[in-house]
């Protein structure tokens, strides 16, 4: 079973890291994975995307992700770009967003398209623990919970490959918080 994830965010927010860690977590579990960012204008603040592919079998595809099984939006200011976020999404697929309350237009469009909307307040989690607005790791935790793609433990192991010391401790905390606090928006 091939599972494709699309991540939306802005340059500098760690979008690439989130996708990378998800792929590494899958590899740690013995699965096959790909992670590739979209390389466009490489400047801070530009909207960027990253993609993760996970499968039980070797992945031969080397092409873009056009019909993702899940979309994760790390940056809340992108939530008004409804069509960009929902592009290629099919029915019943989860959309995980960083918001306290998502914009009404997005909620309405998700209902119309029968897409499951999940929210997590990554802003509050990040500010509480990291003291800075880094949303990527709490969103990673949320994405793991919603998709059930990999075990939380594997993601934490992947985080150990990337971070160390205090930064690792804090990121583990926010991943767990994102994992525990994400919920379907009703």
């Amino acid at each position, binding site marked *: 079973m091939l599972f494709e994830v699309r991540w939306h965010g802005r340059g500098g927010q760690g979008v690439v890291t989130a996708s990378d860690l998800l*792929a590494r977590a899958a590899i740690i579990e013995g699965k096959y*994975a790909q992670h*590739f960012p979209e*390389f466009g204008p490489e400047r801070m603040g530009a909207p960027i995307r990253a993609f993760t592919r996970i499968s039980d079998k070797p992945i031969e*595809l*080397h092409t873009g992700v056009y019909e993702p099984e899940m979309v994760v939006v790390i940056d809340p200011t992108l939530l008004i770009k409804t069509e960009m976020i929902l592009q290629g999404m099919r029915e019943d697929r989860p959309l995980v967003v960083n918001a306290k309350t998502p914009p009404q237009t997005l909620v309405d469009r998700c209902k119309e398209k029968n897409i499951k909307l999940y929210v997590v307040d990554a802003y509050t989690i990040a500010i509480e623990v990291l003291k800075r607005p880094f949303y990527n790791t709490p969103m990673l935790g949320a994405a793991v919970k919603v998709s059930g793609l990999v075990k939380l433990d594997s993601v934490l192991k992947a985080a150990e490959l990337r971070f160390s010391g205090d930064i690792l401790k804090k990121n583990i905390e926010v991943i767990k918080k994102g994992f525990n606090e994400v919920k379907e928006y009703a």
Partner: protein
Amino acid sequence: MGKVVGLMGDEAVAQAVRQSNVDVIAAYPITPQTIIVERLSEYVANGELDAAFVPVESEHSALSCCVGASLTGARVFTASAANGIALMFEITFIASSMRCPIVMAIVNRAFSAPINIHCSHDDTVALRDASWVHLISESVQEAYDNTVQAFKIAEDPRVLLPTSISLDGFILSHCLERIEMLDDEVVSEFLPPRKAEYKLDPEKPITFGPLALYDYYFEFKRQQEEAMRNALTVVKEVAKKYEEISGRKYGTIKKFMTDDADVVLVCMGSAAGTARVVAKSLRKEGKKVGVLSVRLFRPFPTEDVRETLENAKAVAVIDRSSAPGCVGGPLFEDICTALYDLPERPLTYNIIAGLGGRDITPDQIKQMYNIGFKYIEKGKVEDKVLWIGVR
């Protein structure tokens, strides 16, 4: 055996080079190759790799430095892409003519202009007549495996030619995939230190690079041709030895469902995997399709290609580079030449696709196959060269 890790294509190449115990690395950074050279400079700085890392002021100098180092008997590596390859073009011929078994990673990137950092095969195909052995990678695993094998091929006394390993820029170079790395000791055993029969040695002076005019130049070119013919055998031998340590099979080409295929798609690089996925799904619809991907671009495996394609009704060839004014792209011309001596030839058509990093999508590949079935039905090729994916 080995260990499973997640690595980007560039990182995988750098790891393979580290394990291959190179003596000298001279390179100039250029996207999307940069990570390879960055990692190698870190390995050298950290003491993980006992090699001389020579930062140079241009790609022309990078390869010149490699030539000098290689002539001392050292194992030498460099990496470049696109415009960097164009700048080192002069030295690419000198490296092969002086029989320097340098290994170079080419991270495929489109030639300027307009400036583009993404994948076309322009750089590799530009070196097709430079008397280099060219290996093409389809995945991160293959980029790793090809790098280790490249040193063994290049340094074989029957070959002694520079060898390139190509990987698609960004699509593979910056894509993290699961790969299996060999243990350091296993690679060391596979690649013992280079033993150069002839080298620059003050104790035993010899001359490299003298003048040879119409009296001898011709003879040296004939020797290179012989080395290339030998390389065809050596590539297969090395693949067999590599299979023993890795369990992974390599050849000059990769065949997928070609045996009874009506339409075979021929391509190089990362698009091959996508093509196989599409071919598999078309097979489920009852369409007899196959994929032939070329791993060894030079020396061109003419016999293997001919044998694989002789029973096909139509052959589509993807070129990820354009050759304006030619009959078709460079790979297409090779394939057509290989097929020409058959008593009954399949219909052949060329597809220019994926230039400058434009995605080669499953839908495009379906379209390429469908064109083949249409041509078979009509009994002739309508458009010899098609540009697919262009607006």
